[in-house]
C-alpha cells in the first residue's frame, strides 16, 4: 500500500534512528553495569583513569611518613596514635610543593571536638579524658601545656 498516510511514520522512524545514532556516539559504550542487569551503577571501567587522575586532598599518614618519620614515631608511641596527622595539620594537597607549609590548627576548638566532656554512655567518647572548656584554663591554647604528639602531662 503506497499512501501518503504512512509518511509521518517514516519521519518518526527517521527521528528515532537519528536519536539512536546520536546516542551511540554520545553515551560511552560501557555505560551501565552490564553484568548486574539493566541497571546503571556509578562504576564505569572506561573512566577509572579519570578518577585516578583526580587529585586527592587528604593523603594519609603513610604519605607524611615519607619525610616526617620521626614525628610519626613519636605520635605512634603515645595516646594520640589513632589521630591522623591531617586532622590538625590540615589536608596535605601537594605539600611540600603546594602549599609549602601547612597551616597547623592549634585552636582550642580543635581539641575540644574530642576533649570537651560529654555524657555519652553508649559511646567511646566517655573513655576520652574530658574537660569543661568553659572552666579549664579559659582563653589559653591547649598546646601551651600539652604536647599534641604526646599529650599525657606525666610524660612531659
Amino acid at each position: 500500500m503506497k499512501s501518503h498516510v504512512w509518511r509521518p511514520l517514516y519521519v518518526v522512524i527517521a527521528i528515532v534512528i537519528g536519536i539512536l545514532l546520536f546516542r551511540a556516539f554520545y553515551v560511552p559504550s560501557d555505560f551501565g553495569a552490564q553484568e548486574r542487569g539493566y541497571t546503571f551503577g556509578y562504576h564505569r571501567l572506561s573512566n577509572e583513569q579519570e578518577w585516578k587522575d583526580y587529585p586527592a586532598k587528604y593523603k594519609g599518614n603513610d604519605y607524611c611518613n615519607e619525610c616526617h618519620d620521626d614525628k610519626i614515631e613519636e605520635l605512634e608511641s603515645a595516646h594520640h596514635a589513632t589521630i591522623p596527622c591531617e586532622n590538625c595539620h590540615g589536608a596535605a594537597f601537594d605539600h611540600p610543593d603546594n602549599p609549602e607549609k601547612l597551616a597547623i590548627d592549634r585552636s582550642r576548638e580543635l581539641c575540644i571536638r574530642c576533649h570537651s566532656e560529654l555524657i555519652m554512655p553508649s559511646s567511646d567518647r566517655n573513655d576520652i579524658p574530658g574537660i569543661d572548656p568553659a572552666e579549664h584554663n579559659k582563653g589559653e591554647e591547649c598546646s601551651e601545656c600539652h604536647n599534641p604528639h604526646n599529650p599525657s602531662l606525666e610524660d612531659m
Partner: protein
Amino acid sequence: MVEQVAQMIVHGEAWTVKDLFVLPNEYVYWSIQIVMYPYMTGLVAGAFVLSSLYHVFGVEKLKAIARYALVFSFALLPVAMMPLMLHLSQPFRGINVLMTPHFTSAISAFGIVFMTYACIVAVEIWFVYRKFIVESIHRLGKIQSRNFLEKILLPLYKVISLGSMDISDKALQADHKAVKIMAGIGIPVACFLHGYAGFIFGSVKANALWMTPLMPVIFICSAVVSGIALCIVSYYIFMEMRKWAAKRGKSWLLPDAMAHGNATMRVEELRSVQEHEVKISSKYLIIFMTLAITLEMLDMIFRGYTAVKSWDALRMVIYEHDFMKIFVYQYGIGNFLPFLMLLWPGLTTRRAVIASVLVLFGVFMMRWNVVIGGQAFSLTFAGFMEYQLPIIPHNFETFKEGLGGMLAVIVTPFIIFYFLNMIFPAFMSDDELH
C-alpha cells in the same frame, strides 16, 4: 579556588525555613518549578483529551473547541519540559537523562514517554491540517510578491506537507480515519504521560505523602480537569479578543490573519460559537471533576483509616500546617465552589469561565500541596520545613525558582500558541479547513 567555592549558593537555602529537628542536607529542593511540571503536563494531557472527545467519540458539539484544544495542547507540550530545565542547576546535563533511558529510575523514562506523546500529537495535527497545508501551498505559490511572513510560510508548509499533495476525496477520507486512530492512541498515551508524572511522585518510597499507588490516577483525573478548564478559559479569552478585534476592524493583529489574511468573522457568529463551546465543555468538566474529587477524598480517607506509622507527621501537615492550603484553597475554593457554580441552573458563559478559573486554581493548589506539602516534614519525622516562594529575585536562582520562573512558564505556551496559530490556524471555521 576555595573562596570561589565558598560563595556557591546552596540550592534550596534561599527559600526554606526549618523548624525543629531537620537533617542538615534537607531543604525544600523541589520548588515551584516542580509544582509547575505536573501542572503543565496535566494541562497538555487534559487539552488533548478534550480534543479527543470530538475526534474519537464524535461529540459533534465540541468540534470548534476540539481543534483549538489540539493545537493548544501542542503549544503546551514544550512547556511541559521547561520547568524541569529551569529547575536543574546544571541544565546541560538534562540531556543525559534522555540519552540513557532505563527502567530502574522513573525519571529516566521521561524521554521515551514525552517523545512518544509529542510524535502522536504532531502526527494528528498533520492529518487534521493536511488539506489546509496543501491549499496554502497552492495559494501562497500563486502570490507574486510575497511579504515577509509568506516568504517564511511557503517553504515551511512545503516541508511540513512531506510532499504529499493529494487532496482527493479518497485521500481526505484516509486522513480522517488516521486522525481518529491517532486520537484513539493518543488518549492512553496522554494519560500515560501524566500518569507517569504521578508515578514519579507515587513511587518515592521515602516520602509518606506521595507513596501511594493511587497517585497516577489522581494525577490523571485532575489533569483532565485542569486541561479542560484551561481550554475553556483560554478559549473564552481568545474569542473575546477576536470579538474585540472584529468589532474594531483590527483583525490584522491576529496571527492567522497575519499569515492567511482571512480572519474576518462576524461578531455574532463568534459569540454564538463561544457560548456554545464553553457551555458544552463545562458539562464534561463536571464529569471529570466528580471523578477527581472522589479519588482525592478516597485517598485522604484511606490514609486516615489505615493510619500507618507516618500518619502522625502527615496529620500534622494536613490538619495544622497546611490546613488553609488544603481545605480552604484546594477543596473549598478550587473544588466545591466551582462545582456548585457549574451545577447551579441557568449556567451563563461568564459563570462557566469563572468556575473554570477557580478549578485551575484548585488544581494548581493540589499540585502545590502534593509537591511542597510532601516536603513539609523532615525525613526524621521530627521537624518541618516551609517553602517561601521567592517573589523578588535577587539572583538567577531565586528568579527561576520563584515567581518570575513561574510566570515565564505560564506565559510561554501562549507565545508559542500565537506563532503556532500562523501555521495551524486553530480558530478557522470548517469551510476554511476541511
